[in-house]
């Protein structure tokens, strides 16, 4: 073994908590097959192959392994949506992690590629999938390199390919990387991109690619972190897995924190139990807001999530509580803004990203997103008017009809509007452009009011008088 022990992988902070997916992050050579095998690697696969596939599927279902990509749909249930007897069927690994603020999958791929590969193999075996595609975001060069190297090692060692470990089970894993479109993180757009088409979301229905996905075949699209959970689950069993976290959100989850905290980084927290306050102020996590400043706002689940204020700090990482509070856990990215933050400008930064990343397919997102960005730029530049602020809501209403979710605020005396929103768009990119604008305007209206140009209405006197 070449590497020694690191304190942690760059950007990763371990605490005194169970480690489901990050147990090898302490090693400098965590990405090698040698290290992986030395730390229980491919043991889960071996034990899985010794049992009937349906049993493994049941185990994953019973453990309620939630999807870690954003929607939080249980993986075991997702696998069960595939029609019986239709072949071939595919596993697509969504490694196109591009939600602003999210970088947990990147670490999982860079630091422990074999864990992901083993997860793919277990999923393929359990759900009866014949081919696996690993789709990695185009910008993640190191992740691509490490996964490619790991795939070669695993092929050479007989973990992938024909008759894996002497069993009847055969599966191939194909590595593919993206060309840099945010929307390809959306599963149907990812499938389109994988097929060689423009990365644009497919139309719903069908709502799930499980029935009709890649090349028109049944396809399971799983997030990197979801699959990385499987080796540990197989090694330690359902009981051990569900013992961590809560009944509805078992296990741990990776959270990437960025922004104005003393120690930004990726943490493996306990699902459903750790609160935002623990995360932002806990000594084992972010250790408080930088320079001792006050917390102004934070985004709980990636750039497209409605914002929270300190009022919501005591919410745990539990979808069933965060949703009614007006936001989502999404991809597990927390962005923190302290009291020095220029809120309109922060909203503009996020909105500009989503407007730029619109694929151009549907009108509300293509035209509305850009329009939001342009109005907001004007406001930020101090050239906006009262009417512009109303107009932001109006444009948002064309993207997401009806009440848009937001957090409650005691000071402003407003109650929460629960998640999710309704949308006129095909996918979530359009609403994502609106979410920061809406949250910022709803929770911090005074900062916008201070920016706009006041215009005096000149009274027009009727000529007839």
């Amino acid at each position, binding site marked *: 073994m070449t590497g020694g022990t690191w304190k942690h992988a760059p950007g990763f902070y371990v605490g005194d908590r169970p480690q489901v997916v990050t147990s090898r992050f302490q090693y400098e050579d965590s990405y090698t097959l040698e290290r992986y095998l030395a730390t229980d690697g491919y043991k889960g696969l071996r034990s899985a192959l010794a049992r009937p596939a349906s049993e493994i599927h049941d185990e994953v279902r019973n453990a309620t392994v939630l999807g870690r990509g954003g929607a939080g749909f249980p993986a075991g249930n997702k696998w069960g949506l595939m029609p019986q007897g239709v072949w071939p069927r595919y596993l697509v690994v969504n490694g196109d992690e591009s939600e602003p603020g999210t970088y947990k999958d990147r670490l999982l791929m860079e630091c422990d590629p074999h864990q992901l590969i083993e997860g793919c193999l277990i999923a393929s075996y359990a759900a009866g999938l014949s081919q696996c595609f690993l789709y990695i975001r185009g910008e993640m060069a190191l992740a691509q390199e490490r996964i490619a190297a790991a795939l070669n090692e695993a092929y050479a060692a007989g973990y992938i390919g024909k008759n894996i470990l002497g069993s009847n089970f055969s599966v191939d894993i194909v590595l593919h990387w993206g060309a840099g*479109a945010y929307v390809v993180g959306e599963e149907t757009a990812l499938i389109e991109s994988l097929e060689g088409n*423009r990365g644009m979301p497919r*139309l*719903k*229905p069908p709502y799930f690619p499980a029935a009709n996905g890649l090349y028109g075949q049944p396809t399971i699209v799983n997030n990197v972190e979801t699959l990385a959970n499987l080796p540990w689950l197989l090694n330690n069993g359902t009981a051990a897995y569900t013992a961590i976290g809560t009944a509805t959100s078992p296990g741990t989850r990776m959270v990437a924190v960025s922004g104005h905290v003393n120690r930004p980084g990726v943490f493996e927290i306990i699902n459903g139990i750790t609160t935002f306050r623990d995360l932002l102020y806990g000594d084992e996590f972010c250790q408080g807001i930088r320079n001792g400043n006050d917390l102004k706002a934070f985004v709980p689940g990636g750039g497209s999530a409605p914002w929270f204020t300190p009022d919501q700090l005591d919410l745990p990482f539990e979808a069933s509580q965060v949703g009614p509070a007006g936001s989502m856990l999404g991809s597990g990215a927390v962005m923190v803004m302290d009291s020095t933050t220029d809120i309109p400008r922060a909203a503009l930064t996020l909105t500009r990203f989503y*407007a*730029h*990343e*619109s*694929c*151009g*397919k*549907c*009108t*509300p997102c*293509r*035209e*509305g*997103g*850009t*329009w939001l960005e*342009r*109005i907001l730029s004007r406001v930020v530049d101090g050239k906006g008017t009262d*009417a512009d602020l109303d*107009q932001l809501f*109006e*444009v948002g*209403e*064309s993207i997401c*009809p*009806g009440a848009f979710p937001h957090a409650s605020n005691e000071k402003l005396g407003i109650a929460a509007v629960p998640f999710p929103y*309704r949308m*006129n*768009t*095909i996918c979530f990119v359009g609403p994502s452009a609106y979410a920061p604008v809406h949250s910022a305007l709803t929770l911090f209206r005074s900062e916008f009011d201070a920016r706009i140009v006041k215009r005096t209405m000149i009274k027009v006197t009727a000529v007839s008088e």
Partner: protein
Amino acid sequence: MTTIDTTDTNDMPPQDPNAVSITINGRTVSARKGDFIIAAADSIDEYIPRFCYHPRMSSVGMCRQCMVEVEGPRGPMMVVSCMTPVADGQIVRTDTPQVKRAQEGMIELLLANHPLDCPVCDKGGECPLQDQAFSHGAGESRFVEEKRHFEKPIPISDLVFLDRERCILCDRCTRFADEVAGDPLISFTQRGNNTQVMTFPDEPFASYFSGNTVQICPVGALTASPYRFKARPWDLEQRESTCTTCSVGCRTVVQSSRDELLRYQGVDSDPVNWGWLCDKGRFNFQSTNSDDRLSTPQIKSGDSFVASSWSDALDSVARVIRHSREGSVAILGGARGTNEDAFMWGALADAAGITMRDANLDDGLPASIFSYPQATIDSACAGGTVILLAPDIKEELPVLYLRLRDAVQKKRIRLIEISSHETGLTKYAWKSIRAESGTAAAAVPGLLAQADVSAQLASGPVVVVTGRPNLAESASHTMDALSGVLAVAPSASVLPVLRRGNVRGALSLGLAPLNGNDAATILEASAKGDVDCLILLGADPLSDVADVDLARRGIAGAKFIVAIDTFLTDSASHADVVLPAAAYGEKDGTTMNLEGRVTSVVQKITPHGTSRADWMIAVELLTLLGHESNFTTLSDIQRAMSAAVPGFGSTTTAVAIKRDGVVVSVTQRSPESAATSVAPPRNSYEFRLDLSRKLFDRAIGTITSPSLANLAAEANIFIHPLDLDRVGAAEGTNVRVSNSHSSIVLPVRGSFSIPRGTAWVPFNQIGADVRELVRRNESIIDVRIESM
């Protein structure tokens, strides 16, 4: 003669097991499972605004304009009605404040970057964006930012211009090109707010169907050069008609302003064209407006023509007919005219004892093709197997190609193709074999005996689409192959694909050859001096007969030639009397398409100069020849047609009001038994000549339409690339093409679409004329190709 049965294609459909019932704005609507809400709403005239939705293409839900509210388990849900299928008991509302808000919002967003240059936009006045901005928009825009800018307009093909600023990215044109036409030459590029429609680098949108994208564009982003800035929509008058450019019979509207034809638009006729047109049919209205049109009768004096009055010209024609020896008058042509034209000329021929007549120009199949059980386009596309013994359908009958391609793409039919070179349909064929000219009949039994093929034939109805695949090959080879197919599949029906506009009508209504005296026989007789008066009824044998030597001898041998035409064609210039004929759009009547479907054609503008409809000329001559004639109007003729041709009358009166027309099935009483042809032994040093048409050639209607005139290619001879070595010629160099009859020089091109040993020459292109090598008494033509 012929007997005619009438079949009404619009019988009541049987009770539908897929029927569902939904409620839209409180009204109950019956729909079919799989229908979308928007279509169900259309059926009861509840209009839902839309841009990207098109009933003939798959839904993409891109514009999001058609949002409606559907009652769901968790209260009303906003859905896109073009993507949401109907479900029994569904409750839809299109009129709630939420729907109105969403639709107004979408219009505002679409208009955000739209230039609003309506006053100078061709679409202004008939623009779905403009119309729906008024009907479903808020009335004003709050978009004060600078709009998106692009260079405008840019040509994306010879015919179509693209203005990306006006484009609302509805995906209609790109979807049409990909899904319907199979020419995915335009696509989206860039992303987000910079998304734009574009061609691929160095590849123009050279599709035969590009004009349809202009028609279905919901804004003025795509414009076609023949119509740009020619008129405002509110100045246009229109009448619904049928295109007679080829025999598919697409329904169109003919639009004019200031007594000038300005545009044709496709009309959605369910059994025929589904709203599509080919570019040739769409843009050849320019030909009618051409300055080169014949405007007065002309009488040959010495070497030149002298304009004359109609009475002088008709007098001289009548005199010649009267003084001709018995049985020495011949009529060639008639396929360009209406049914009424053909019927009147047939009546004139009967009265005057003219026995030599043929509406084909030795380039079709014997009229006995109509004696087989006949298929329709719909029946061919409905299911089962379609066997192609035909020319390249994409080149000759483009909209039939669209229908067949659609049926294959939707997996309704399987195509089996037997052809001498690859065609536009080859890549859609389930089986496609190359049989060199003269050998199709020999190849049929083996192909159809294959186990999977016979299983396929047994699995459903079989339709044989048959026409003349090679003009340098005798029609009897095709008829033999057809007999071979029918021997294996005796219950198969036949869809004859003769190309000329109303050739089926002309052949059915009195201009079919009598006693086997077809065009070739007539020209041969003429060459021998046996024709005293040759009447060219819109026929140009010098350009259209494959055996040009025969045509030349026939024209030279005729004692007196009368040409009735719209232009002074090659053949007409040899005439003694030229009578100007009214063109398409200048006369009313009916026409019959390749299925035998009778539909209306209409007059929209005044005939050019003093030109007259063909039937009027026949009526005049009938009177001048001393026969009693009660014909003064078109309805007189239609009444006579009803009386003379059983079953026809009820159709002609109904046709005027019926878009889809009526299929008239014609049965030949005694099918002629065509002599079978045997291809002579093959000299392996020679190439077998394959002479067939492309859509754009030097046809008079094409070269007199300025926008189409440049689309005809230079004449080339195409051989397999490996045969280039054998010939010792490089791509593009001139080779000598010769046989015992003549020798010409043509540039040679390699093409993998051509099998080895075959030489394909597109018919009637610019350059050396390969017809010099064709003799119709040889059933196939072999040529030598030598490098120079």
